[in-house]
């Protein structure tokens, strides 16, 4: 497939946007796109793939038969003219695949018959009950919408925008292994408010949940809609609204006849008077399968692999699918596989991985959704429905959202439980107090170092909450997992505390693996308090207070940089010196510095002065000669003298406390270097000392 790559370009209101996805051009892919078929079945068509298509192309809606896969429907059309622009609706009806590449909507109206299109549009318009929304969206932010689109999971299915730069760099277009779901020209299709309405709950219009529902705040909805419509202004009220559509009853009546003839109601929810009866299949070939333009037959433009797979399926369509097949095909149909791996299959592909972001401290587990391997026996039967309904979310660090699929996933938990079942291995009775110790950081396994416990944040990296372990996880799976976490999820940061089944901690419960795991499980079940060993909060204990001598300390400091050298004087005046460019940057009074993070935080944040009256030197002028920092010397009183060279000439620079200020002196060989460009901070009075001259300049700064 990769050989077919052609860079495609798409115009959007004058801005030409290169599209990464490799095959938008309809001439290359006229067929309807079922992502999972493209990804898992197209290379080698099978009856399985055919079953997926039979469901996902709506074949079952006309011809009957239960594939086991959640029903695929067309969108609800009742209020379509309150949702999309009338002109776009007509364009889509006239040639669906031209209006949106890869659509599963077949061509159903007579070819080249604009009057038929007009009539159907009027019929659909006549169904409208809802008024056009008068709700206005005040403020929108295109850039934020773009950021959301590329981080919350939209691009797991839809193609990313080539102008968007993910943190690790853009993937190469040639790395795309399967196609993305294309959008229509959304600015032709929607108004800002109607797209926002759709995004707020796509299941209202698409109850089959092939576009699932994300949990979005109102501003997310507005910004996403603005991005998708390429609307770059700030005031949503300036965005074009939906065009009014006046229904002509005569045309609507003609449209009603066309809709009945085209059997639209097989896939779309429409009034009873246009209902389409099931048409049992006679053979396993011919008809819609052949892409022929027979009037009255929907035309799909199936690809050869799609035709082959459908024929294979139809030849054996009376054989029911096994639960395992149904489970797999359900996860494919809903494109769960876009984000989740199951048994080594699926999950974000190389290209789309770049858009999965999260907490980098958690490694791959901090950015990619979890595998679905064995999920039916990993999660308790009562927990998986909570995940699917959005009641439970345990990985707040993933930027990618788990969306909601409504009724389409109602049967999924029971199905997965049935398919994934394995022999149960019960845990021995658990010792609650041993569990408290094991989970804790005082001689235990320090689980709380990386995992939250209820409302208590973990001590270090913020792995997911373990307090609901009992409610979430089945004991058999837990035992297998804990002995070899990497076997379940390669690349997990979770180490094994029972490598090869042998306990690393021999001191608790005699190192008995099963009893230790049971103790942890039992403690989680008991709800009795929290694991032990949370340290008392430290604050202020690491304030550096210069007493008899100055203190020199390197750190990262905001506005100073990564080469900051701090000097704190007992007199209560302090300095931040840039040890890269050999120049003072900040001076302040009062408290000096809290060294806690510099000394003991893994994450080395950029610090701020602890005191007040911070004054800042102006940035170096671009014309200044290059300076090279060479270090510092401490004198007997531990006052540093900074050393650097300017054009090869050694300069010594020294700061000492003065009355409510600092005295700065610079020494160099004036025979070799005439003078230095010396800047002074704002917020102080600057006095050049008497005797200051090239080669030996000194200044006194006093806070105003």
């Amino acid at each position, binding site marked *: 497939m990769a050989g077919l790559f052609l860079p495609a370009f798409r115009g959007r209101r004058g801005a030409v946007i290169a599209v990464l996805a490799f095959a938008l051009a309809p001439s290359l892919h006229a067929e309807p796109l079922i992502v999972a078929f493209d990804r898992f079945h197209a290379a080698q068509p099978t009856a399985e793939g055919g079953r997926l298509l039979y469901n996902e192309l709506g074949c079952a809606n006309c011809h009957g038969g239960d594939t086991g896969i959640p029903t695929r429907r067309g969108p609800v059309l009742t209020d379509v003219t309150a949702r999309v622009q009338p002109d776009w609706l007509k364009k889509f009806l006239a040639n669906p695949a031209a209006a949106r590449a890869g659509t599963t909507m077949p061509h159903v109206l007579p070819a080249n018959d604009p009057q038929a299109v007009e009539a159907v549009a009027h019929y659909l318009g006549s169904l409208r009950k809802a008024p056009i929304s008068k709700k206005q969206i005040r403020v929108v932010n295109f850039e934020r919408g773009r950021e959301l689109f590329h981080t919350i999971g939209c691009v797991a299915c839809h193609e990313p925008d080539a102008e968007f730069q993910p943190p690790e760099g853009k993937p190469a277009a040639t790395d795309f292994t399967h196609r993305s779901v294309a959008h229509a020209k959304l600015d032709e299709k929607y108004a800002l408010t109607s797209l926002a309405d759709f995004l707020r709950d796509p299941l209202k219009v698409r109850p089959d949940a092939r576009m699932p529902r994300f949990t979005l705040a109102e501003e997310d909805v507005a910004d996403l809609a603005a991005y998708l419509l390429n609307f770059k202004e700030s005031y949503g009220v300036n965005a074009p609204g939906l065009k009014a559509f006046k229904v002509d009853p005569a045309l609507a009546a003609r449209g009603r006849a066309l809709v009945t003839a085209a059997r639209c109601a097989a896939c779309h929810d429409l009034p009873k008077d246009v209902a389409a009866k099931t048409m049992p299949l006679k053979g396993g070939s011919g008809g819609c399968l052949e892409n022929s333009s027979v009037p009255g037959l929907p035309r799909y433009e199936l690809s050869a692999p799609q035709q082959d797979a459908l024929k294979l399926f139809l030849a054996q369509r009376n054989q029911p699918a096994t639960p395992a097949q149904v489970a797999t095909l359900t996860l494919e149909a809903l494109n769960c596989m876009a984000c989740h791996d199951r048994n080594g299959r699926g999950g974000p592909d190389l290209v789309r991985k770049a858009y999965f972001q999260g907490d980098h401290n958690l490694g791959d587990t901090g950015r990619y959704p979890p595998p679905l391997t064995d999920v039916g026996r990993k999660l308790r039967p009562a927990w998986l429905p909570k995940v699917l309904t959005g009641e439970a979310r345990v990985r707040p660090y993933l930027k990618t959202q788990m969306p909601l699929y409504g009724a389409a996933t109602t049967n999924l938990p029971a199905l997965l439980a049935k398919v994934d079942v394995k022999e149960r291995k019960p845990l021995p009775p658990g010792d609650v107090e041993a569990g408290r110790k094991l989970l804790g950081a005082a001689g235990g396994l320090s689980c709380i170092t*990386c995992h939250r416990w209820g409302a208590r944040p973990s001590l270090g990296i913020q792995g997911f909450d373990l307090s609901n372990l009992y409610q979430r996880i089945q004991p058999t799976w837990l035992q297998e997992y804990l002995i070899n976490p990497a076997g379940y999820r390669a690349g997990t940061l979770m180490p094994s505390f029972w490598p090869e089944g042998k306990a690393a901690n021999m001191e608790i419960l005699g190192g008995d693996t099963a009893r230790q795991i049971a103790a942890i499980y039992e403690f989680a079940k008991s709800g009795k308090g929290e694991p032990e060993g949370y340290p008392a909060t430290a604050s202020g204990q690491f304030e550096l207070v210069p007493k008899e001598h100055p203190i020199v300390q390197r750190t990262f400091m905001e506005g100073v940089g990564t080469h900051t050298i701090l000097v704190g004087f007992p007199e209560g005046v302090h300095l931040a010196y840039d040890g890269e460019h050999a120049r003072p940057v900040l001076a302040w009074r009062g408290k000096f510095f809290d060294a806690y993070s510099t000394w003991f935080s*893994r994450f080395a944040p950029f610090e701020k002065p602890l005191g007040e009256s911070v004054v800042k030197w102006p940035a170096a002028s671009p014309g200044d000669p290059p300076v090279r920092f*060479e270090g510092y010397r401490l004198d007997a009183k531990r006052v540093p003298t900074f050393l650097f060279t300017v054009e090869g000439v050694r300069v010594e620079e020294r700061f000492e406390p003065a009355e409510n200020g600092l005295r700065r002196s610079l020494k160099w060989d004036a025979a070799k270097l005439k003078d230095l460009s010396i800047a002074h901070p704002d917020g102080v009075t600057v006095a050049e000392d008497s005797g200051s001259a090239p080669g030996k300049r000194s200044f006194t700064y006093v806070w105003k």
Partner: protein
Amino acid sequence: MRPVTGLKPGANERFGMRAISFRKFFFTALGCTFFFAFSAIAADSAYEILNLLTANSPSASRSADWKPGEGIALEVSGMDFTADGKLAVAVRKGEVWLIDGMLGGSPDKVTYKLFASGLHEPLGVLRDGDSLLVSQRTEVTRLRDTDGDGVADEYLTTARGWNVSGAYHGYTYGPKRDGQGNLWVALNLDMGDHANNKTGWRGWGGIVTKSGDFQPMAAGMRSPCGLGANLAGDMFCVDQQGTWIMATPIYHLRRGVFFLNQEGIGSQDLPGSPLKLPAKLPNKVPYPEAVRAVPPMRPPAVWLPYTKMGRSGTDLAVCNAGGKFGPFDGQMFVAEFTDAKVSRVFMEKVDGEYQGAAFPFLAGFASGLVRLQFAPDGSLMVGMTSRGWTSLGTKSYGLQRVKWNGTTPFAIHEMRARPDGFELTFTQPVDAKAAGNPESYSMSSYTYLYSSAYGSDEIETKPVKIVSATMAKDGRSVRLKAEGLRELFVHELHADGVRSASGAKLDHALACYTLNRIPKK
């Protein structure tokens, strides 16, 4: 008696003394008990782990609120011995301590003296004449005491020239000297906030020029935490499993080579780069294919397979103890963080390139190992800190010492590649019947998937048939003839059936040989 760090009065002020007796820091007699309990579970009875100073704070070391607890925060990040036999210890909070008297065995005589402070997360210290060189995040600094009061008063910038973005993982490792006197430094990739690996030699190793600049030499590293030269003077470096890095590798550093991680190769476009890689680099291919496709790409001399030889290698030390550390002079000891272990590595040269075998050595340390340093008396100093990551062991930091008790361990001493198999030598005479029986051995070989993912499973695993095992006359070595050797694959040997002449099992029957090249003769 004066405060050197200027801490606020309170619990910590008593450490602001320039020389502190060991007694004050050897917290309780329980510490001793704890240590002996530990050495009793050490796998190898010929070696004991002795406690010098371990934290009394719990190892909740990822805590945002972590504190060092009472005493010196001896989160060891660098070690070397001074000319007068003191151990210079760099600690992560930015200090260098000189520890004296600890090899004598009398805790009362041990003194700790603060030599330098205010440094930025120094991760290495090296004696250099009358100075100590320490690596800070931003530079290598020469510390010197010019007035003889035992405290450094010169902090001179000795090497610089790499990008320091402020990302927490932008560590500087080294410096270490090779046999030609070159001073080597290695730079961690940036990770997290502020990360910028596009420029400034992140993921590279290099040497320090006379003018004090960084001269890049080798690329493709991720977390090249430990450097060290072997007895021939060649420089090696241990990296850690992570993105692009499938397991812990040991690289032979030299000019113009690329190892594994592609995230920092943008620097090859900077002036001074000794490397130009092809525009298209492999991803998601079996490792041997990747090596063959990219000529400057050099395989690690030795892989330490994940979990079998620990997880995250952090340092290496080549034994030159003159027999005082058992029979392993010339071999390399590799520190490991997560499992708090030490592995042992034997290397040989085949066609001019290093390769060799890794063996388990010793486990049961108090915290995540970060630094190893052989002492003048042949014992091995082990510096630990687990702050920020998880490790086995119950302490958050400390200094321990491994001592050989004089009994010869029963181990595979060397494992050499042969055109048709391997040759093993043992540290003790072996039972000829057991060692000469091919059924005493089992072997498989595997490689890894080279990709941007974090680590790799072992892939393409196949059994390697040991068709014969022929004892040499010396009664200590055996030739294994094997079918199905594969170049660039790790060959994992289990010599479970081997017995010593006195009937003992091997202390460790596992050996993992990285067969980059099959010798022609």
